[in-house]
Protein backbone atom coordinates (compact mmCIF):
# COMPACT_ATOMS: atom_id res chain seq x y z
CA UNK A 1 0.00 0.00 0.00
CA UNK A 2 3.03 2.28 0.10
CA UNK A 3 4.45 4.13 -2.84
CA UNK A 4 8.11 4.98 -2.41
CA UNK A 5 9.25 8.38 -3.56
CA UNK A 6 12.75 9.17 -4.75
CA UNK A 7 15.13 9.48 -1.81
CA UNK A 8 12.20 8.78 0.49
CA UNK A 9 11.35 12.41 1.07
CA UNK A 10 7.74 11.30 1.40
CA UNK A 11 5.41 8.34 1.01
CA UNK A 12 1.80 8.19 -0.10
CA UNK A 13 -0.56 6.05 1.97
CA UNK A 14 -3.88 4.90 0.61
CA UNK A 15 -7.09 5.23 2.54
CA UNK A 16 -10.49 4.17 1.32
CA UNK A 17 -11.95 7.58 0.66
CA UNK A 18 -8.94 9.76 1.18
CA UNK A 19 -5.21 9.74 0.79
CA UNK A 20 -2.46 10.24 3.34
CA UNK A 21 1.18 11.21 3.18
CA UNK A 22 4.17 10.67 5.42
CA UNK A 23 6.83 13.33 4.97
CA UNK A 24 10.37 12.81 6.25
CA UNK A 25 13.20 15.19 7.10
CA UNK A 26 16.37 15.41 9.14
CA UNK A 27 15.13 18.83 10.20
CA UNK A 28 11.56 19.91 10.83
CA UNK A 29 11.88 22.49 8.03
CA UNK A 30 12.51 19.69 5.55
CA UNK A 31 9.37 17.88 6.73
CA UNK A 32 7.27 20.94 5.90
CA UNK A 33 8.93 21.19 2.47
CA UNK A 34 8.44 17.47 1.75
CA UNK A 35 4.81 17.54 2.87
CA UNK A 36 4.21 20.37 0.37
CA UNK A 37 5.98 18.38 -2.36
CA UNK A 38 3.86 15.35 -1.50
CA UNK A 39 0.70 17.43 -1.81
CA UNK A 40 1.58 18.74 -5.28
CA UNK A 41 2.78 15.32 -6.42
CA UNK A 42 -0.73 14.04 -5.62
CA UNK A 43 -2.19 16.84 -7.72
CA UNK A 44 0.09 16.65 -10.77
CA UNK A 45 3.33 15.29 -12.31
CA UNK A 46 5.87 17.65 -10.82
CA UNK A 47 8.50 17.16 -13.56
CA UNK A 48 6.14 18.96 -15.98
CA UNK A 49 5.98 22.06 -13.79
CA UNK A 50 8.19 25.16 -14.18
CA UNK A 51 9.26 27.63 -11.52
CA UNK A 52 8.72 31.05 -13.05
CA UNK A 53 6.17 32.31 -10.51
CA UNK A 54 6.88 33.09 -6.88
CA UNK A 55 4.28 33.19 -4.10
CA UNK A 56 5.05 34.37 -0.58
CA UNK A 57 3.16 32.49 2.08
CA UNK A 58 2.83 33.23 5.78
CA UNK A 59 0.75 31.15 8.15
CA UNK A 60 0.26 30.98 11.89
CA UNK A 61 -1.37 28.45 14.19
CA UNK A 62 -1.44 27.35 17.82
CA UNK A 63 0.90 24.35 17.60
CA UNK A 64 3.28 22.63 15.20
CA UNK A 65 0.80 19.97 14.03
CA UNK A 66 -1.95 22.43 13.21
CA UNK A 67 0.67 24.73 11.62
CA UNK A 68 1.41 21.91 9.17
CA UNK A 69 -2.30 21.59 8.33
CA UNK A 70 -2.57 25.36 7.98
CA UNK A 71 0.46 25.46 5.64
CA UNK A 72 -0.90 22.69 3.42
CA UNK A 73 -4.37 24.24 3.33
CA UNK A 74 -2.83 27.55 2.25
CA UNK A 75 -1.24 25.69 -0.66
CA UNK A 76 -4.55 23.94 -1.49
CA UNK A 77 -6.10 27.41 -1.55
CA UNK A 78 -3.42 28.76 -3.92
CA UNK A 79 -3.97 25.81 -6.25
CA UNK A 80 -7.75 26.13 -6.29
CA UNK A 81 -8.01 29.93 -6.31
CA UNK A 82 -4.97 30.85 -8.43
CA UNK A 83 -4.65 27.60 -10.41
CA UNK A 84 -0.97 27.52 -9.59
CA UNK A 85 1.12 24.35 -9.40
CA UNK A 86 4.00 24.68 -6.96
CA UNK A 87 7.16 22.59 -6.93
CA UNK A 88 9.86 24.38 -4.89
CA UNK A 89 9.47 25.65 -1.37
CA UNK A 90 12.00 27.84 0.38
CA UNK A 91 11.11 28.08 4.06
CA UNK A 92 12.53 31.32 5.36
CA UNK A 93 11.22 31.18 8.88
CA UNK A 94 9.69 28.43 10.99
CA UNK A 95 8.69 28.23 14.65
CA UNK A 96 6.09 26.02 16.32
CA UNK A 97 3.40 28.55 15.54
CA UNK A 98 4.56 30.53 12.49
CA UNK A 99 5.84 29.79 9.02
CA UNK A 100 7.11 32.03 6.24
CA UNK A 101 7.99 30.63 2.85
CA UNK A 102 8.63 31.50 -0.77
CA UNK A 103 6.92 29.02 -3.12
CA UNK A 104 7.84 28.62 -6.78
CA UNK A 105 5.77 27.17 -9.58
CA UNK A 106 3.66 28.03 -12.60
CA UNK A 107 0.05 28.43 -13.61
CA UNK A 108 -1.84 25.30 -14.58
CA UNK A 109 -1.80 24.91 -18.38
CA UNK A 110 -4.16 22.14 -19.59
CA UNK A 111 -1.97 21.41 -22.63
CA UNK A 112 1.11 20.66 -20.53
CA UNK A 113 -0.14 19.58 -17.12
CA UNK A 114 -2.31 16.70 -16.04
CA UNK A 115 -4.35 17.13 -12.90
CA UNK A 116 -4.41 13.70 -11.28
CA UNK A 117 -6.39 14.47 -8.15
CA UNK A 118 -8.31 17.39 -6.78
CA UNK A 119 -7.44 17.90 -3.11
CA UNK A 120 -10.23 19.41 -1.01
CA UNK A 121 -8.23 19.98 2.17
CA UNK A 122 -5.60 18.73 4.62
CA UNK A 123 -7.35 17.31 7.70
CA UNK A 124 -6.51 16.96 11.40
CA UNK A 125 -7.39 13.29 11.27
CA UNK A 126 -4.53 11.04 12.47
CA UNK A 127 -2.28 14.07 12.26
CA UNK A 128 1.15 13.31 13.74
CA UNK A 129 4.65 14.77 13.83
CA UNK A 130 7.23 12.44 15.41
CA UNK A 131 10.97 12.44 15.96
CA UNK A 132 13.21 9.40 16.15
CA UNK A 133 16.96 8.84 15.74
CA UNK A 134 16.65 9.17 11.94
CA UNK A 135 14.91 12.52 12.09
CA UNK A 136 11.35 13.79 11.86
CA UNK A 137 8.29 12.34 10.17
CA UNK A 138 4.83 13.81 9.75
CA UNK A 139 1.57 12.15 8.77
CA UNK A 140 -1.28 14.07 7.16
CA UNK A 141 -4.55 12.80 5.66
CA UNK A 142 -6.04 14.75 2.77
CA UNK A 143 -9.65 14.76 1.73
CA UNK A 144 -9.63 14.23 -2.02
Amino acid at each position, binding site marked *: MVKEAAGKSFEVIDH*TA*DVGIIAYGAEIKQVFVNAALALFSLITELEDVGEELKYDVEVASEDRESLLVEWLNELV*YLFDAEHVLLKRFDIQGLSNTRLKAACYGEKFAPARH*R*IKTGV*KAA*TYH*MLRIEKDNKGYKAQV*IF*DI
Partner: protein
Amino acid sequence: MAPWQGQLTKIDDYHWEIPQSYKAGMRVPGLIYASQEMLESIKQEQVLEQVANVAFLPGIINFSMAMPDIHWGYGFPIGSVAAMDIKDGVISPGGVGYDINCGVRLLRTNLTEAEVRPKINQLINELFRNIPSGLGSKGKIRVTQKEMRELMVEGAGWAVRHGFGSMDDLDCTEEGGRLYGANPDKISDKAITRGMPQAGTLGSGNHFVEVQVVKEIFEPEIAKVMGIEETGQILVLIHTGSRGFGHQVCTDQLRIMEEAVSRYGINLPDRQLACAPIESPEGKDYFAAMACAANYAWNNRQCIVHWTRESFSKVFDKSPEELGMRQVYDVAHNIAKMEEHTVDGKKIKVCVHRKGATRAFPAGHKDIPERYKEIGQPVLIPGDMGRCSFVAVGTQRAMEESFGSTCHGAGRMLSRGAARRSLKGRDVARDLAERGILVKAGDIPSLAEEASQAYKDVTQVIEAVHQAGISRKVVMAVPLGVIKG
Protein backbone atom coordinates in the same frame (compact mmCIF):
# COMPACT_ATOMS: atom_id res chain seq x y z
CA MET B 1 -4.76 -2.75 8.55
CA ALA B 2 -6.03 -5.49 10.86
CA PRO B 3 -9.78 -6.09 10.93
CA TRP B 4 -11.72 -4.33 13.68
CA GLN B 5 -11.96 -6.57 16.76
CA GLY B 6 -14.44 -4.58 18.82
CA GLN B 7 -17.69 -5.70 20.36
CA LEU B 8 -20.87 -5.99 18.27
CA THR B 9 -24.27 -7.16 19.40
CA LYS B 10 -26.79 -8.41 16.86
CA ILE B 11 -30.23 -6.86 17.32
CA ASP B 12 -31.72 -8.40 14.16
CA ASP B 13 -30.50 -9.27 10.65
CA TYR B 14 -30.01 -5.58 9.73
CA HIS B 15 -29.35 -3.83 13.06
CA TRP B 16 -26.12 -4.18 15.05
CA GLU B 17 -25.03 -2.40 18.17
CA ILE B 18 -21.66 -1.31 19.53
CA PRO B 19 -22.40 -1.25 23.28
CA GLN B 20 -21.73 1.96 25.13
CA SER B 21 -19.39 -0.02 27.39
CA TYR B 22 -17.07 -0.72 24.43
CA LYS B 23 -15.02 2.39 25.09
CA ALA B 24 -14.94 4.67 28.11
CA GLY B 25 -16.20 8.08 27.01
CA MET B 26 -18.98 6.88 24.72
CA ARG B 27 -22.18 8.69 25.69
CA VAL B 28 -24.48 6.44 23.63
CA PRO B 29 -24.13 3.07 21.85
CA GLY B 30 -23.31 2.76 18.15
CA LEU B 31 -25.99 1.47 15.75
CA ILE B 32 -24.99 -0.07 12.44
CA TYR B 33 -27.43 -0.81 9.62
CA ALA B 34 -26.00 -3.68 7.57
CA SER B 35 -26.42 -7.31 6.60
CA GLN B 36 -24.07 -9.89 8.09
CA GLU B 37 -22.24 -10.08 4.76
CA MET B 38 -21.72 -6.32 4.53
CA LEU B 39 -20.63 -6.18 8.14
CA GLU B 40 -17.73 -8.51 7.42
CA SER B 41 -16.48 -6.07 4.79
CA ILE B 42 -17.12 -3.06 7.07
CA LYS B 43 -14.96 -4.70 9.75
CA GLN B 44 -11.99 -4.78 7.41
CA GLU B 45 -11.23 -1.14 8.13
CA GLN B 46 -11.29 0.87 11.33
CA VAL B 47 -14.56 2.58 10.49
CA LEU B 48 -16.48 1.10 13.45
CA GLU B 49 -13.90 2.65 15.76
CA GLN B 50 -14.91 5.97 14.22
CA VAL B 51 -18.58 5.20 14.92
CA ALA B 52 -17.59 4.66 18.57
CA ASN B 53 -15.59 7.93 18.55
CA VAL B 54 -18.59 9.96 17.33
CA ALA B 55 -20.49 8.61 20.36
CA PHE B 56 -18.14 10.74 22.53
CA LEU B 57 -19.67 14.00 21.33
CA PRO B 58 -21.63 16.01 23.93
CA GLY B 59 -25.40 16.02 23.54
CA ILE B 60 -25.58 13.05 21.15
CA ILE B 61 -28.99 11.38 21.39
CA ASN B 62 -29.84 7.66 21.22
CA PHE B 63 -27.08 6.35 18.95
CA SER B 64 -24.04 7.15 16.84
CA MET B 65 -25.45 5.69 13.62
CA ALA B 66 -23.82 4.11 10.59
CA MET B 67 -25.55 3.38 7.30
CA PRO B 68 -24.71 0.25 5.25
CA ASP B 69 -22.66 2.30 2.78
CA ILE B 70 -20.40 3.44 5.60
CA HIS B 71 -16.71 3.76 4.93
CA TRP B 72 -13.65 5.25 6.52
CA GLY B 73 -13.60 9.03 6.64
CA TYR B 74 -11.67 11.63 8.58
CA GLY B 75 -13.22 12.05 12.02
CA PHE B 76 -16.82 11.07 11.32
CA PRO B 77 -17.14 8.09 8.99
CA ILE B 78 -18.81 8.65 5.63
CA GLY B 79 -22.31 7.23 6.01
CA SER B 80 -22.92 8.47 9.54
CA VAL B 81 -25.83 10.14 11.29
CA ALA B 82 -25.57 11.88 14.67
CA ALA B 83 -28.34 13.94 16.25
CA MET B 84 -27.51 16.36 19.06
CA ASP B 85 -29.84 18.04 21.52
CA ILE B 86 -29.62 21.75 20.72
CA LYS B 87 -29.78 22.62 24.43
CA ASP B 88 -26.58 20.88 25.47
CA GLY B 89 -25.20 19.37 22.29
CA VAL B 90 -22.42 20.27 19.88
CA ILE B 91 -22.20 20.91 16.17
CA SER B 92 -19.17 19.57 14.29
CA PRO B 93 -17.92 20.55 10.82
CA GLY B 94 -16.45 17.04 10.59
CA GLY B 95 -20.00 15.67 10.84
CA VAL B 96 -20.83 17.38 7.55
CA GLY B 97 -17.54 17.13 5.69
CA TYR B 98 -15.67 19.38 3.27
CA ASP B 99 -18.11 19.07 0.39
CA ILE B 100 -20.99 20.78 2.19
CA ASN B 101 -24.37 19.86 0.66
CA CYS B 102 -22.93 17.47 -1.81
CA GLY B 103 -26.15 15.95 -3.07
CA VAL B 104 -28.18 14.53 -5.91
CA ARG B 105 -31.01 15.76 -8.05
CA LEU B 106 -33.24 13.65 -10.28
CA LEU B 107 -35.17 14.67 -13.40
CA ARG B 108 -37.80 12.56 -15.10
CA THR B 109 -38.52 12.79 -18.84
CA ASN B 110 -41.14 11.59 -21.34
CA LEU B 111 -38.36 10.02 -23.41
CA THR B 112 -37.76 6.30 -23.75
CA GLU B 113 -34.63 4.23 -24.18
CA ALA B 114 -35.61 3.56 -27.80
CA GLU B 115 -35.58 7.29 -28.50
CA VAL B 116 -32.41 8.14 -26.58
CA ARG B 117 -30.05 5.25 -27.29
CA PRO B 118 -29.55 6.13 -30.99
CA LYS B 119 -28.64 9.70 -29.99
CA ILE B 120 -26.70 8.98 -26.82
CA ASN B 121 -23.36 9.97 -28.32
CA GLN B 122 -24.65 13.33 -29.43
CA LEU B 123 -26.46 13.85 -26.11
CA ILE B 124 -23.44 13.05 -23.93
CA ASN B 125 -21.21 15.29 -26.05
CA GLU B 126 -23.72 18.11 -25.78
CA LEU B 127 -24.01 17.72 -21.98
CA PHE B 128 -20.23 17.62 -21.69
CA ARG B 129 -19.91 20.76 -23.77
CA ASN B 130 -22.71 22.64 -22.07
CA ILE B 131 -21.99 21.87 -18.39
CA PRO B 132 -18.68 23.21 -17.06
CA SER B 133 -16.80 20.33 -15.46
CA GLY B 134 -13.33 19.24 -14.43
CA LEU B 135 -10.80 20.62 -12.00
CA GLY B 136 -10.25 24.30 -12.24
CA SER B 137 -13.23 24.66 -14.58
CA LYS B 138 -14.79 28.08 -14.56
CA GLY B 139 -18.49 28.60 -14.64
CA LYS B 140 -20.55 29.98 -17.49
CA ILE B 141 -22.21 32.31 -15.06
CA ARG B 142 -20.15 35.23 -13.83
CA VAL B 143 -21.11 36.43 -10.38
CA THR B 144 -20.00 39.67 -8.78
CA GLN B 145 -19.15 39.93 -5.06
CA LYS B 146 -22.61 41.34 -4.45
CA GLU B 147 -24.31 38.54 -6.38
CA MET B 148 -22.19 35.98 -4.56
CA ARG B 149 -23.53 37.29 -1.26
CA GLU B 150 -27.11 37.07 -2.55
CA LEU B 151 -26.54 33.57 -3.86
CA MET B 152 -25.26 32.37 -0.46
CA VAL B 153 -28.53 33.43 1.13
CA GLU B 154 -30.99 32.55 -1.63
CA GLY B 155 -29.59 29.18 -2.77
CA ALA B 156 -31.34 27.58 -5.74
CA GLY B 157 -33.82 30.47 -5.73
CA TRP B 158 -31.04 32.78 -6.92
CA ALA B 159 -30.60 30.70 -10.06
CA VAL B 160 -34.37 30.51 -10.63
CA ARG B 161 -34.57 34.29 -10.26
CA HIS B 162 -31.95 34.54 -13.02
CA GLY B 163 -33.85 32.30 -15.40
CA PHE B 164 -32.42 28.89 -14.53
CA GLY B 165 -35.32 26.54 -13.92
CA SER B 166 -38.65 27.15 -12.26
CA MET B 167 -40.42 27.56 -8.93
CA ASP B 168 -41.61 23.99 -9.36
CA ASP B 169 -37.96 22.88 -9.09
CA LEU B 170 -37.65 24.69 -5.76
CA ASP B 171 -40.79 23.02 -4.49
CA CYS B 172 -39.18 19.63 -5.19
CA THR B 173 -35.88 20.41 -3.47
CA GLU B 174 -35.02 19.67 0.16
CA GLU B 175 -35.52 22.90 2.15
CA GLY B 176 -36.84 24.51 -1.04
CA GLY B 177 -33.19 24.81 -2.08
CA ARG B 178 -32.50 27.37 0.62
CA LEU B 179 -31.27 26.72 4.14
CA TYR B 180 -32.31 29.56 6.44
CA GLY B 181 -29.76 31.10 8.78
CA ALA B 182 -27.07 31.73 6.16
CA ASN B 183 -24.91 34.74 6.96
CA PRO B 184 -22.36 35.86 4.32
CA ASP B 185 -20.52 37.93 6.97
CA LYS B 186 -19.24 34.63 8.34
CA ILE B 187 -17.54 33.76 5.05
CA SER B 188 -13.82 34.43 4.50
CA ASP B 189 -12.43 36.29 1.49
CA LYS B 190 -10.63 33.10 0.57
CA ALA B 191 -13.88 31.16 0.35
CA ILE B 192 -15.39 33.89 -1.82
CA THR B 193 -12.32 33.93 -4.08
CA ARG B 194 -12.58 30.15 -4.55
CA GLY B 195 -16.34 30.19 -4.87
CA MET B 196 -17.00 32.97 -7.37
CA PRO B 197 -15.43 31.40 -10.48
CA GLN B 198 -16.74 27.92 -9.61
CA ALA B 199 -20.43 28.84 -9.31
CA GLY B 200 -22.42 26.61 -11.68
CA THR B 201 -19.72 23.97 -12.23
CA LEU B 202 -19.91 20.20 -11.87
CA GLY B 203 -16.38 19.69 -10.52
CA SER B 204 -14.47 16.44 -10.68
CA GLY B 205 -13.90 13.23 -8.74
CA ASN B 206 -17.11 11.28 -8.19
CA HIS B 207 -19.39 14.07 -9.43
CA PHE B 208 -21.43 13.38 -12.55
CA VAL B 209 -24.47 13.90 -14.74
CA GLU B 210 -25.95 10.53 -15.70
CA VAL B 211 -28.62 9.64 -18.26
CA GLN B 212 -30.47 6.59 -16.94
CA VAL B 213 -33.08 4.06 -18.04
CA VAL B 214 -35.72 2.80 -15.60
CA LYS B 215 -35.13 -0.94 -15.28
CA GLU B 216 -37.44 -2.01 -12.48
CA ILE B 217 -40.36 -0.45 -10.61
CA PHE B 218 -40.99 -1.99 -7.18
CA GLU B 219 -43.84 0.32 -6.11
CA PRO B 220 -45.77 1.45 -9.23
CA GLU B 221 -48.28 3.62 -7.33
CA ILE B 222 -45.55 5.54 -5.51
CA ALA B 223 -43.36 5.82 -8.62
CA LYS B 224 -46.30 7.24 -10.56
CA VAL B 225 -46.60 10.14 -8.13
CA MET B 226 -42.96 10.95 -8.93
CA GLY B 227 -43.70 10.85 -12.65
CA ILE B 228 -41.94 7.52 -13.17
CA GLU B 229 -44.44 5.36 -15.05
CA GLU B 230 -42.72 2.57 -16.95
CA THR B 231 -39.55 0.64 -17.52
CA GLY B 232 -37.54 2.06 -20.39
CA GLN B 233 -38.31 5.64 -19.33
CA ILE B 234 -35.33 8.05 -19.28
CA LEU B 235 -34.22 9.81 -16.08
CA VAL B 236 -31.30 12.17 -15.44
CA LEU B 237 -29.34 12.15 -12.18
CA ILE B 238 -27.04 15.03 -11.20
CA HIS B 239 -24.45 14.67 -8.41
CA THR B 240 -22.40 17.63 -7.25
CA GLY B 241 -21.80 19.88 -4.25
CA SER B 242 -20.37 23.19 -3.09
CA ARG B 243 -16.98 22.88 -4.83
CA GLY B 244 -13.95 24.84 -3.53
CA PHE B 245 -16.30 27.24 -1.74
CA GLY B 246 -17.59 24.54 0.62
CA HIS B 247 -14.12 23.10 1.10
CA GLN B 248 -12.78 26.48 2.18
CA VAL B 249 -15.76 27.11 4.50
CA CYS B 250 -15.12 23.78 6.21
CA THR B 251 -11.35 24.43 6.44
CA ASP B 252 -11.91 27.90 7.94
CA GLN B 253 -14.51 26.73 10.43
CA LEU B 254 -12.58 23.64 11.52
CA ARG B 255 -9.64 25.87 12.40
CA ILE B 256 -11.90 27.99 14.61
CA MET B 257 -13.45 24.91 16.22
CA GLU B 258 -10.01 23.37 16.78
CA GLU B 259 -9.20 26.25 19.09
CA ALA B 260 -12.65 26.26 20.69
CA VAL B 261 -12.60 22.60 21.77
CA SER B 262 -10.24 23.07 24.71
CA ARG B 263 -11.94 26.31 25.73
CA TYR B 264 -15.24 24.46 26.12
CA GLY B 265 -13.53 21.58 27.91
CA ILE B 266 -14.63 19.01 25.35
CA ASN B 267 -12.70 15.73 25.41
CA LEU B 268 -12.27 14.16 21.96
CA PRO B 269 -10.61 10.96 20.77
CA ASP B 270 -9.73 12.55 17.38
CA ARG B 271 -8.86 16.16 16.53
CA GLN B 272 -10.92 16.01 13.35
CA LEU B 273 -14.07 15.68 15.50
CA ALA B 274 -13.55 19.31 16.57
CA CYS B 275 -16.87 20.86 17.61
CA ALA B 276 -18.49 23.57 19.70
CA PRO B 277 -21.79 23.87 21.54
CA ILE B 278 -24.63 24.52 19.07
CA GLU B 279 -25.64 27.63 20.99
CA SER B 280 -22.08 29.01 21.37
CA PRO B 281 -20.80 31.84 19.10
CA GLU B 282 -18.55 29.34 17.29
CA GLY B 283 -21.42 26.87 16.86
CA LYS B 284 -23.77 29.55 15.52
CA ASP B 285 -21.10 30.93 13.19
CA TYR B 286 -20.41 27.49 11.80
CA PHE B 287 -24.10 26.93 11.08
CA ALA B 288 -24.40 30.36 9.41
CA ALA B 289 -21.34 29.66 7.23
CA MET B 290 -22.34 26.07 6.46
CA ALA B 291 -25.79 27.30 5.36
CA CYS B 292 -24.06 29.66 2.87
CA ALA B 293 -22.19 26.69 1.39
CA ALA B 294 -25.33 24.54 1.36
CA ASN B 295 -27.12 27.28 -0.56
CA TYR B 296 -24.20 27.65 -2.95
CA ALA B 297 -24.49 23.91 -3.71
CA TRP B 298 -28.23 24.12 -4.33
CA ASN B 299 -27.66 27.03 -6.67
CA ASN B 300 -25.04 24.94 -8.41
CA ARG B 301 -27.37 21.99 -9.02
CA GLN B 302 -30.08 24.41 -10.13
CA CYS B 303 -27.80 25.87 -12.84
CA ILE B 304 -26.75 22.40 -13.97
CA VAL B 305 -30.36 21.26 -14.22
CA HIS B 306 -31.02 24.19 -16.54
CA TRP B 307 -28.10 23.31 -18.83
CA THR B 308 -29.16 19.66 -18.76
CA ARG B 309 -32.62 20.65 -20.00
CA GLU B 310 -31.05 22.92 -22.60
CA SER B 311 -28.88 20.07 -23.89
CA PHE B 312 -31.79 17.64 -24.18
CA SER B 313 -33.85 20.30 -25.86
CA LYS B 314 -31.17 20.89 -28.47
CA VAL B 315 -30.57 17.20 -29.23
CA PHE B 316 -34.26 16.21 -29.37
CA ASP B 317 -35.45 19.48 -30.86
CA LYS B 318 -38.27 19.91 -28.35
CA SER B 319 -38.76 22.22 -25.39
CA PRO B 320 -37.98 20.88 -21.89
CA GLU B 321 -41.75 21.08 -21.20
CA GLU B 322 -42.52 18.94 -24.23
CA LEU B 323 -39.89 16.49 -23.06
CA GLY B 324 -41.55 16.45 -19.61
CA MET B 325 -38.26 17.22 -17.85
CA ARG B 326 -39.73 17.78 -14.41
CA GLN B 327 -37.64 17.57 -11.29
CA VAL B 328 -38.43 14.56 -9.11
CA TYR B 329 -36.43 15.74 -6.12
CA ASP B 330 -33.10 17.06 -4.81
CA VAL B 331 -31.48 15.74 -1.63
CA ALA B 332 -28.44 16.86 0.35
CA HIS B 333 -26.19 14.13 1.67
CA ASN B 334 -23.56 16.18 3.58
CA ILE B 335 -25.36 18.61 5.86
CA ALA B 336 -26.35 19.53 9.41
CA LYS B 337 -29.96 20.59 9.99
CA MET B 338 -32.03 21.83 12.88
CA GLU B 339 -35.08 19.56 12.97
CA GLU B 340 -37.88 18.62 15.31
CA HIS B 341 -37.88 14.97 16.42
CA THR B 342 -39.67 12.94 19.07
CA VAL B 343 -37.30 11.62 21.71
CA ASP B 344 -38.68 9.61 24.66
CA GLY B 345 -42.18 10.73 23.74
CA LYS B 346 -41.28 14.42 23.73
CA LYS B 347 -40.89 16.69 20.72
CA ILE B 348 -37.50 18.37 20.86
CA LYS B 349 -35.25 20.35 18.54
CA VAL B 350 -32.12 18.56 17.47
CA CYS B 351 -29.19 19.20 15.18
CA VAL B 352 -28.95 16.24 12.82
CA HIS B 353 -25.54 15.71 11.22
CA ARG B 354 -25.78 13.69 8.00
CA LYS B 355 -22.41 12.95 6.47
CA GLY B 356 -22.90 10.64 3.54
CA ALA B 357 -26.49 10.09 4.63
CA THR B 358 -29.83 11.27 3.27
CA ARG B 359 -32.92 12.71 4.89
CA ALA B 360 -35.81 10.24 4.58
CA PHE B 361 -38.98 11.83 5.97
CA PRO B 362 -42.20 9.79 5.93
CA ALA B 363 -45.56 10.43 4.30
CA GLY B 364 -47.44 13.23 6.00
CA HIS B 365 -44.36 15.05 7.33
CA LYS B 366 -44.77 18.84 7.29
CA ASP B 367 -41.42 19.45 5.57
CA ILE B 368 -42.09 17.53 2.37
CA PRO B 369 -43.77 18.96 -0.73
CA GLU B 370 -47.53 18.73 -1.07
CA ARG B 371 -47.32 16.38 -4.05
CA TYR B 372 -45.36 13.82 -1.98
CA LYS B 373 -47.43 14.10 1.22
CA GLU B 374 -49.09 10.72 0.53
CA ILE B 375 -45.97 8.78 -0.42
CA GLY B 376 -43.14 10.21 1.68
CA GLN B 377 -40.03 12.10 0.69
CA PRO B 378 -38.18 10.77 -2.36
CA VAL B 379 -34.70 9.53 -1.51
CA LEU B 380 -32.14 9.37 -4.33
CA ILE B 381 -29.43 6.75 -4.03
CA PRO B 382 -26.81 6.81 -6.80
CA GLY B 383 -24.71 3.72 -7.42
CA ASP B 384 -21.43 3.62 -9.28
CA MET B 385 -21.35 4.31 -13.04
CA GLY B 386 -21.35 0.62 -14.01
CA ARG B 387 -24.19 -0.70 -11.89
CA CYS B 388 -27.48 1.03 -11.04
CA SER B 389 -29.16 3.68 -8.92
CA PHE B 390 -32.29 3.63 -6.79
CA VAL B 391 -35.14 5.90 -5.88
CA ALA B 392 -36.68 5.20 -2.48
CA VAL B 393 -39.03 6.95 -0.06
CA GLY B 394 -38.71 7.83 3.62
CA THR B 395 -40.63 5.90 6.27
CA GLN B 396 -42.14 6.36 9.71
CA ARG B 397 -39.61 3.89 11.07
CA ALA B 398 -36.76 6.17 9.89
CA MET B 399 -38.45 8.98 11.81
CA GLU B 400 -38.62 6.89 14.96
CA GLU B 401 -35.23 5.27 14.71
CA SER B 402 -32.67 7.13 12.57
CA PHE B 403 -33.83 10.75 12.94
CA GLY B 404 -35.45 10.50 9.52
CA SER B 405 -32.27 9.36 7.77
CA THR B 406 -31.08 6.65 5.42
CA CYS B 407 -28.09 5.73 3.24
CA HIS B 408 -26.64 7.92 0.45
CA GLY B 409 -25.04 5.69 -2.15
CA ALA B 410 -22.82 2.74 -2.82
CA GLY B 411 -19.95 3.64 -0.53
CA ARG B 412 -16.33 3.22 -1.46
CA MET B 413 -14.68 -0.15 -0.96
CA LEU B 414 -11.28 0.32 -2.60
CA SER B 415 -9.08 3.37 -2.23
CA ARG B 416 -8.47 5.33 -5.40
CA GLY B 417 -4.92 3.96 -5.59
CA ALA B 418 -6.05 0.36 -5.06
CA ALA B 419 -8.74 0.80 -7.73
CA ARG B 420 -6.16 2.06 -10.21
CA ARG B 421 -3.80 -0.81 -9.43
CA SER B 422 -6.49 -3.48 -9.66
CA LEU B 423 -7.53 -2.16 -13.07
CA LYS B 424 -4.03 -1.60 -14.39
CA GLY B 425 -4.07 -1.44 -18.17
CA ARG B 426 -7.84 -1.88 -18.41
CA ASP B 427 -9.75 0.63 -20.47
CA VAL B 428 -12.66 1.38 -18.14
CA ALA B 429 -14.46 3.54 -20.69
CA ARG B 430 -14.29 0.75 -23.28
CA ASP B 431 -15.43 -1.90 -20.76
CA LEU B 432 -18.46 0.25 -20.00
CA ALA B 433 -19.12 0.99 -23.69
CA GLU B 434 -19.27 -2.75 -24.36
CA ARG B 435 -22.04 -2.93 -21.79
CA GLY B 436 -23.92 -0.08 -23.45
CA ILE B 437 -22.79 2.72 -21.10
CA LEU B 438 -21.15 5.72 -22.72
CA VAL B 439 -18.78 7.70 -20.51
CA LYS B 440 -17.18 11.03 -21.26
CA ALA B 441 -14.70 12.34 -18.70
CA GLY B 442 -12.29 15.22 -18.37
CA ASP B 443 -9.49 12.93 -17.24
CA ILE B 444 -9.65 9.39 -18.65
CA PRO B 445 -6.96 7.82 -16.38
CA SER B 446 -8.97 8.89 -13.31
CA LEU B 447 -11.96 6.88 -14.51
CA ALA B 448 -10.44 3.73 -13.02
CA GLU B 449 -10.71 5.32 -9.58
CA GLU B 450 -14.48 5.53 -10.02
CA ALA B 451 -15.01 2.10 -11.61
CA SER B 452 -17.57 -0.37 -10.23
CA GLN B 453 -14.84 -2.46 -8.62
CA ALA B 454 -14.03 0.46 -6.28
CA TYR B 455 -17.53 0.56 -4.79
CA LYS B 456 -19.83 -1.61 -2.74
CA ASP B 457 -22.79 -3.00 -4.65
CA VAL B 458 -25.52 -0.40 -4.15
CA THR B 459 -28.15 -3.16 -4.48
CA GLN B 460 -26.95 -4.63 -1.17
CA VAL B 461 -26.95 -1.17 0.42
CA ILE B 462 -30.53 -0.43 -0.60
CA GLU B 463 -31.63 -3.93 0.41
CA ALA B 464 -30.22 -3.37 3.90
CA VAL B 465 -32.02 -0.05 4.48
CA HIS B 466 -35.20 -1.45 2.91
CA GLN B 467 -35.14 -4.54 5.15
CA ALA B 468 -34.22 -2.45 8.18
CA GLY B 469 -37.30 -0.36 7.40
CA ILE B 470 -35.70 3.10 7.24
CA SER B 471 -36.65 3.56 3.58
CA ARG B 472 -38.63 1.73 0.91
CA LYS B 473 -37.19 1.05 -2.52
CA VAL B 474 -39.35 2.30 -5.37
CA VAL B 475 -37.39 2.36 -8.64
CA MET B 476 -34.14 0.96 -10.01
CA ALA B 477 -32.46 2.59 -13.02
CA VAL B 478 -29.29 1.79 -14.96
CA PRO B 479 -26.89 4.19 -16.68
CA LEU B 480 -26.96 4.79 -20.41
CA GLY B 481 -24.46 7.64 -20.54
CA VAL B 482 -22.40 9.58 -18.01
CA ILE B 483 -20.39 12.77 -17.99
CA LYS B 484 -17.73 13.16 -15.32
CA GLY B 485 -15.43 16.05 -14.52
